[in-house]
């Protein structure tokens, strides 16, 4: 029995659970669309003349995807721990990397749909008139951010024994992300220590790619080295998540 087959078994099981949990599906797919619509209402009401709404809307959409994916993943993993199904998986011989691989595969399927829906809604609401290649680039960033958010959720779930304990970790990760990532104000305007801290937030790395992409005529290649930020960040968090997924007490 290879590890890949076991990871596939975990992924298949998670997908079956997702497919049957309408509330979860609603939160993962419909809730982001609703929040993006509220964003549109908000930006229409502010009517600030000196920026284009799309330069805020797309990163804000990415933030919404990040937030919801991170929270849902953390809660699902904590539930696995609380109900001792995680311990049972280990006792049956599943390894950390197989469990995380299975989860990532299943949630990547979810992220693929979620990112496509959010980006389509953003394009429709904000009348984004981009060439297909730029949409594809934006989609890639949002999709990667979504996967990284899952890794972050899995990592954080290690520090909570139940769903109640995971709650304090939500603002701890999400709020600094909002303030420091450059979505609201440019990172360069922050003090040096906060600039350093901003590198720890996934949204910073997403915004570093989105920002040049959203400028007129922006191409993915314009992001330069920043393009490496997201996959590198994802690899680090995923490795941390795999190594810290507690097998025994």
């Amino acid at each position: 029995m290879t590890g890949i087959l076991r990871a596939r078994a975990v992924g298949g099981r998670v997908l079956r659970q997702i497919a049957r949990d309408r509330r979860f599906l609603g939160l993962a797919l419909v809730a982001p669309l609703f929040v993006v619509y509220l964003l549109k209402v908000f930006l229409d009401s502010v009517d600030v003349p000196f920026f284009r709404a799309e330069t805020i809307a797309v990163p804000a959409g990415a933030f919404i995807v990040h937030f919801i994916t991170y929270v849902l993943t953390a809660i699902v993993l904590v539930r696995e721990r609380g109900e001792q199904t995680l311990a049972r998986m280990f006792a049956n011989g599943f390894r950390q990397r197989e469990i995380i691989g299975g989860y990532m595969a299943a949630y990547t399927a979810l992220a693929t749909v979620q990112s496509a829906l959010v980006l389509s809604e953003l394009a429709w609401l904000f009348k984004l008139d981009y060439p297909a290649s730029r949409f594809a680039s934006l989609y890639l960033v949002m999709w990667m951010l979504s996967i990284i958010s899952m890794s972050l959720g899995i990592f954080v779930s290690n520090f909570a024994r139940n769903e109640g304990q995971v709650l304090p970790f939500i603002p701890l990760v999400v709020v600094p992300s909002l303030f420091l990532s450059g979505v609201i104000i440019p990172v360069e305007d922050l003090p040096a220590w906060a600039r350093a801290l901003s590198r720890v937030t996934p949204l910073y790395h997403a915004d570093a790619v989105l920002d040049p992409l959203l400028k007129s005529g922006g191409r993915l290649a314009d992001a330069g080295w920043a393009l490496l930020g997201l996959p590198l960040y994802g690899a680090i968090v995923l490795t941390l998540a795999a190594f810290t997924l507690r097998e025994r007490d």
Partner: protein
Amino acid sequence: MTDAVVVDNLRKRYGRIQALDGISLAVPRGEIFGLLGANGAGKTTLIRSLVGLARPDSGTLRVLGLDPVREARALRRQVGYMPQAPSLYQDLSPRENVRFFGSAHELGDAEARVAEVMKFVELAARERDPVHTLSGGMKQRVSLACALVHRPPLLLLDEPTAGVDPPLREAFWNHFRGLAAAGGTIFVSTHQLDEAMSCGRVAVMRNGRILACDTPAGLLQRGRTVVRVASGGRTEEETIASTPEALAEFLKRRGLDPAVARVELAADTLEKIVLDLVRREGAQP
């Protein structure tokens, strides 16, 4: 052949709680070994240590000749573990749960094997309903099926019959006896004293220590027996040890007078013996 389980001076502490306090025991292959004790006695921690889910602070542990922490992968292929809580995916069906946990192992014809265990736990009729719609006893049955599905040579069962009705509990125990007769080893914790009587040996635990480890008959002999002798219209009572030797000694002393019309024996139950053991230990400083 090595013993299935060898534990030597095992200790495990959770914060201020000494969950295991110097446990030593050996279980030969083919034995049904019972752990008896109240909640918090350390039974679950001991079973979790055996499957490598709890890392001991000190002491040595070999299960099927393997170290449960360093050789966890090799060991877990050969162990069927049933936790105290059902530990199932509530939104999946019994069949899907058994199939999923079985997928960690080489099952051969997986579908046929899953169907076989579902039939054994008498859940074939409900095998496609979500687990959350089942009763507590049914969930225990699904959980047992998950532990049995890969035909492990060692079963580690943490209170497997809690909430299971008596006829099915009897079926479980018949199955355990069959597995043990075929060379399988069963390490089972229980609250039920009648189940302890079905074990080859029983360890009585309290506060992370083993107070006694013996066969059920050996444990019974630790009790006292009241002998009532009716002779010539009078009834006399005497309390002796519950051993065959003590009874022989008593009868020799009496010389079995022809006037003795009746001899009644009232031996301590296993429950009383275990409670006395636990109380005596509790009274010690």
